[in-house]
């Protein structure tokens, strides 16, 4: 049973392509139900305060208002991570940022709801506002939350793998650099929207623009005290997600509650300003990289500290914190490593997972520092990296399993394609090139709620019509997950993608898939789909083999037929083959599941970073910098991505180019920043520009031409060998831009975004004989917890910390649900 490649690997129109170009894709706000009411949320106008009094009487009296809600109706907290259930649908006692929802109005239309909303009176008693991590570290009281490690520190972690101090002390050179990465946001063009209704049986149905229907399902069950079995969550296709629709949101819980109470459908669609308040975007991160390097340019040890500004709630923040330290070792050979990360609460919209989740910030620091190391050692930055690329099939110092790694090929490819050897340090003033690399997960190896259940499930239904329907909880957010699902089933069964119908993202109809995050869908759903489709093929082959008297092993599924490999004329149509199987076995249905392999990282905190396989990327960015104005333009980007195997090269290229685009935005202009209103006003800490116009993002005019190469060595862990592509290609862009700016005008911008203002200031410093650099000057003293010491594998470590108290280990029941090596080996799988 080998891959013919009739579908897989061919550039194709995505299965939902027609719907998207005809306007027929139904997004959440396109849903209209009879008797539907509309909701608006009143959001806090102050950054941190006790709620003293809320008077909703005037709002409730407005003609057309059905219901006014406050935090009283929502006593139960929820949140995405089990360790930080710190959100209420509406604030009960305290508001924690400008934009925190305090009340809701349900009315016959949006305008009425808004009018009534403005009549709600809220009396606040101001609390100290924490505007920065420095504020939060300096003042433990008042606490923004009653939980967290201490004071206003949400989480502080310290991990050490080997004797990093000795390794750095013994190095030929020590590089000690500070970097800062400003926060930025996803800015999906679709504003979040949700429609909730009570179905004819009295059960709750929620249609929402969510990337994670399964987690929303769980959150609704908890927050509303309803059995999960009586809640149906339907993830509508997302009009862009990028991580920004991965948390359960206030508005979702509010309209779900209101729909049940009023027994009417309720819709809410957020304004663009509100989308900025939902945020959950890139954490601002301050970083200190101390790296020991030999004179040959190999790394002896890395000592990394990160400080994350988490905003007002937990969100994915604990994971984000660990991710700032997780993937350095997956890219380069770093034999000893210490990572200390700290996330503080501040009175700003909560940060969370944005494309690259916690890794782009420290990737920026590491890749710029490598550029400085190369400069000091007079080694070409490409050669420096080629020399330290992590070898394949290795276990990193922090016990992450690297399988296939195409990074060296990626570097060679972009060096070659960009003419790097003739341009680096050779272009005239104002023109430069920069190189950087990255790695990313192909799916988080552990689920958010630790359990022994599959991460992705797929069901297949086939019948005498010859039609095949595939069911999976995966969520289409534009990345093409429906296309991957259909393509895999079509490939395995030898039919056309058009013959397959996909039903996805519906907790009533589809088996659980954990959601569209961590670049997990292609790998996990894909492996589950292969298993389900191969099981169906087995049944069909059994029936055809008996009927046509052809040995099963000789049957080929292709061209909508099932036939004898040795005599292709002998065979039957796929439709007839399914009929034979239905007659022989009864109603046909198969399932597939995927659970990632167990991680070797057993220490506390080792749950963040493991993945079935990692993708790799290298990029060269060309910049033109005007030395008079500091203005940067990016004419061209060359990028090579280790994709394992491109299932649909058209979509893969789109993900690469989209990642480059978002990286250019983050590198040059995107900032989610805040300011204090003047004291004579409220002195509130407010978002500087919660609008698309002023939150600058690249248009078609700023977008460079991108030259994409895909490096394809099929990975045994991925479906047909595929790895992720949704996130990795974003990561090298920011450091490559900064490195190119240095090549162009000789100044180091160690702070993202690289704005003209920073470049000008650095050029002025350079002209004045000062350090030609813009970036942070110090890293605060943080009371780190006791460092967990883990002996690296090369020193005989077991993956457990030497000084960790014994804790109950998580045991996964082996239910035969590991699907590995899917699609690229010939071994028959059970």
């Amino acid at each position, binding site marked *: 049973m080998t891959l013919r490649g009739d579908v897989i690997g061919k550039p194709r*129109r*995505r299965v*939902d*392509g*027609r*719907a*998207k*170009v*005809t*306007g*027929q*894709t*139904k*997004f959440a*706000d*396109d849903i*209209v139900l009879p008797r539907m009411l509309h909701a608006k949320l009143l959001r806090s106008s102050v950054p941190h305060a006790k709620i003293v009094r809320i008077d909703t009487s005037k709002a409730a009296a407005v003609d057309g208002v059905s219901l006014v809600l406050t935090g009283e109706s929502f006593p139960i907290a929820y949140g995405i991570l089990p360790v930080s259930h710190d959100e209420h649908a509406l604030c009960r006692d305290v508001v924690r940022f400008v934009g925190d929802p305090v009340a809701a109005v349900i009315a016959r239309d949006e305008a009425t709801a808004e009018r009534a909303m403005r009549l709600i009176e809220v009396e606040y008693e101001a609390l100290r506002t924490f505007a920065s991590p420095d504020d939060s570290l300096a003042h433990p009281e008042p606490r923004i939350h009653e939980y967290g490690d201490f004071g206003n520190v949400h989480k502080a972690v310290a991990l050490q793998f080997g004797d990093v101090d000795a390794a750095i002390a013994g190095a030929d050179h020590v590089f000690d650099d500070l970097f800062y990465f400003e926060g930025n946001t*996803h*800015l*999906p*063009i*679709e*504003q979040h929207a949700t429609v909730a209704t009570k179905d004819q049986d009295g059960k709750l149905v929620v249609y929402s623009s969510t990337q994670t229907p399964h987690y929303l399902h769980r959150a609704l069950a908890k927050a509303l005290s309803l059995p999960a079995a009586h809640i149906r969550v339907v993830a509508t*296709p*997302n*009009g*862009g*997600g*990028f991580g920004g629709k991965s948390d359960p949101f206030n508005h979702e819980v509010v309209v779900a509650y209101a729909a049940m109470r009023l027994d009417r459908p309720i819709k809410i669609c957020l*304004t*663009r300003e509100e989308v900025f308040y939902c945020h959950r975007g890139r954490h601002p991160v301050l970083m200190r990289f101390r790296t020991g390097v030999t004179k040959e340019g190999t790394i002896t040890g890395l000592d990394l500290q990160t400080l994350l500004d988490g905003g007002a709630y937990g969100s994915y923040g604990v994971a984000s914190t660990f991710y700032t330290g997780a993937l350095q070792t997956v890219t380069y050979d770093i034999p000893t490593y210490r990572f200390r990360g700290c996330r503080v609460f501040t009175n700003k919209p909560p940060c969370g997972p944005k494309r690259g989740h916690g890794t782009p910030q420290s990737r920026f620091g590491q890749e710029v520092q490598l550029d400085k190391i190369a400069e000091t050692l007079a080694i070409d930055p490409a050669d420096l990296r080629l020399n330290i690329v992590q070898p394949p099939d290795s276990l990193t110092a922090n016990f992450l399993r690297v399988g296939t790694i195409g990074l060296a090929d990626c570097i060679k490819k972009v060096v070659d394609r960009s003419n790097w050897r003739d341009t680096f340090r050779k272009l005239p003033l104002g023109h430069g090139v920069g190189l950087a690399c990255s790695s990313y997960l192909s799916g988080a190896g552990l689920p958010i709620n630790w359990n022994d259940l599959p991460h992705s499930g797929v069901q297949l239904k086939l019948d005498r019509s010859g039609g095949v329907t595939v069911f999976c909880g995966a969520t289409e*957010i*534009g*990345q*093409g997950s429906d296309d991957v699902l259909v393509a895999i089933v079509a490939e395995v069964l030898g039919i056309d993608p058009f013959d397959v119908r996909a039903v996805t993202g519906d907790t009533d109809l589809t088996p659980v898939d954990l959601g569209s995050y961590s670049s997990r869908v292609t790998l996990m759903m894909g492996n589950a789909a292969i298993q389900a489709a191969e099981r169906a093929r087995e049944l069909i082959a059994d029936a055809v083999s008996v009927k046509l008297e052809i040995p099963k092993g000789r049957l080929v599924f292709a061209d909508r037929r099932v036939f004898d490999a040795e005599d292709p004329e002998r065979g039957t149509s796929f439709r007839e083959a399914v009929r034979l199987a239905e007659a022989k076995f009864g109603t046909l249905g198969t399932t597939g599941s995927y659970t990632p392999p167990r991680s070797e990282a057993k220490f506390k905190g080792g749950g963040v970073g493991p993945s079935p396989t990692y993708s790799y990327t290298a990029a060269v960015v060309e910049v033109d910098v005007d030395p008079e104005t500091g203005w940067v333009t990016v004419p061209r980007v060359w990028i090579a991505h280790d994709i394992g195997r491109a299932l649909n090269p*058209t*979509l893969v*290229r*789109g993900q690469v*180019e*989209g*990642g*480059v*685009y*978002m990286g250019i935005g983050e590198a040059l202009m995107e900032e989610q920043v805040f300011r204090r209103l003047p004291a004579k006003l409220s002195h509130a800490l407010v978002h500087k520009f919660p*609008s*698309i*116009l002023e939150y600058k*993002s690249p*248009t*078609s*005019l700023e*977008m460079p*031409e*991108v030259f994409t190469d895909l490096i394809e060595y099929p990975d045994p862990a991925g479906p047909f060998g595929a790895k992720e592509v949704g996130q990795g290609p974003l990561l090298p862009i920011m450091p490559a831009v900064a490195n190119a700016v240095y090549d162009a005008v000789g100044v180091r911008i160690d702070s993202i975004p690289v704005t003209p203002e920073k470049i000008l200031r650095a050029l002025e410093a350079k002209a004045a004989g000062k350090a030609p650099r813009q970036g942070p000057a110090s890293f605060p003293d943080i009371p780190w917890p006791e460092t967990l010491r883990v002996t690296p594998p090369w020193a005989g470590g077991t993956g457990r910390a030497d000084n960790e108290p014994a804790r109950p280990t998580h045991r996964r029941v082996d239910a035969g649900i590991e699907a590995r090596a899917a699609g690229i080996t010939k071994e028959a799988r059970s």
Partner: protein
Amino acid sequence: MKLRLTLTVNGEPADTLVDPDKTLLEVLREDLQLTGTKHGCELGECGACAVLVDGVPLLSCLMVAHECEGRAVVTVEGLTEDGRLHPLQECFADLGAAQCGYCTPGILMTAKALLDREPHPSRERIREALSGNLCRCTGYQQILDAVEAAASLTVTR
């Protein structure tokens, strides 16, 4: 009080009663059930709601519907002809120019206006024409490719 609004939408007469403060976007989506036209800001910043009014691409979120009295509006639902996709639609679908698809209707309408005016635009002209339509997914490259491909298709027809 609602006022009568009579206009042509996708070649068909539309006769409806709408609130005088409603935008064209709201009338299209809410009164005429043409939800193919999207919104990303309702402030004229993102371009998602672009439609053609008398052949000119305009932001429907900034137009009061009653300004369109007697005028001809074309939305993404009006791009197909005789059940066949417009060349722009074919090329957008084939070449990956629509990822999430949310900005796509506005971009298609803006691109159609460009090709109607200039059948053979340069890549730079396409970039300029689409610079008011934000797309967060694609990085624009496959969109530019698709518009170029559609322009060449239109010629060979």
